């Protein structure tokens, strides 16, 4: 969280976040928008990247920056699907336990639990 606040404490960085959230842009294109050097813009992007607010990827010779919100949402969606799988599994486990509460070998288990 600290990283996020630090990253957003700078006006240029806030502007970059808004810009790339609307549309992905190359670092070169971003640099052209500000009265500062390419290297300086690159540094700002690196700070945002560390805070996971943007994602930078190399595409040919260009470095493309895009907002990470989408990435976070995408990850959330995919993980939710996986969660669904586990809900089904837990339900099946529960059904098996109800059907076979004392399958053979349970006596051994109790001994095992004591040890």
């Amino acid at each position, binding site marked *: 969280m600290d990283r996020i606040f630090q990253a957003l404490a700078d006006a240029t960085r806030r502007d970059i976040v808004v810009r790339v959230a609307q549309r992905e842009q190359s670092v070169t294109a971003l640099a052209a928008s500000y009265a500062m050097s390419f290297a300086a813009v690159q540094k700002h992007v690196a700070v945002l990247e560390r805070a996971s607010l943007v994602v930078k990827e190399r595409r040919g010779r260009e470095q493309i920056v895009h907002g990470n919100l989408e990435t976070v949402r995408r990850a959330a969606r995919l*993980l939710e699907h996986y*969660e669904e799988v586990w809900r089904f599994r*837990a339900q099946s*486990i529960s059904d098996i336990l109800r059907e076979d509460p004392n399958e053979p070998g349970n006596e051994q*288990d109790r001994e095992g*639990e004591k040890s």
Partner: protein
Amino acid sequence: MTVVSSQTDTEALTLTFVADFDASVQRVWRLWQDPRQLERWWGPPTWPATFERHDFVPGGRSNYFMTGPEGEKGAGWWVTTLIEPPHRLEFEDGFADENGDPVAQMGSVRAVVTLDEAGGRTRMTMVSTFESLDQLQKMTEMGMEEGMRQALGQIDTLLAEDVSA
């Protein structure tokens, strides 16, 4: 069974799933240990799993396939990396090709399972960690594809019943 909590971490790409079961730790452990029991719950209801191999020892391999309503097969593998019966199990889980060999570009999911006694019940905590967002996406798509085929299969069954009715 109670699902106690389910948490996803979108940065670490993990799913932490916690459920309580009305059984002893040993009993729940055997649901993981015994391939005949494992296959009763590992696959989705209409895609039952068959474990052809389940070397439930550290470094041991498991091979399974799931069979869809149309007889389609989806294969998977495990490598068990750590076993501390009956409380802790760690393994890698991935997709396999028709020979049971890991599909390398799909990577694997790292799973850590812990079973703890909790007020006469067993608390199962399962943490799955994906390698990257792209891998998570690929694995989900593959799973979703199966889910889709499953749904289509069910529709087919319903239609077939309708025709014969």
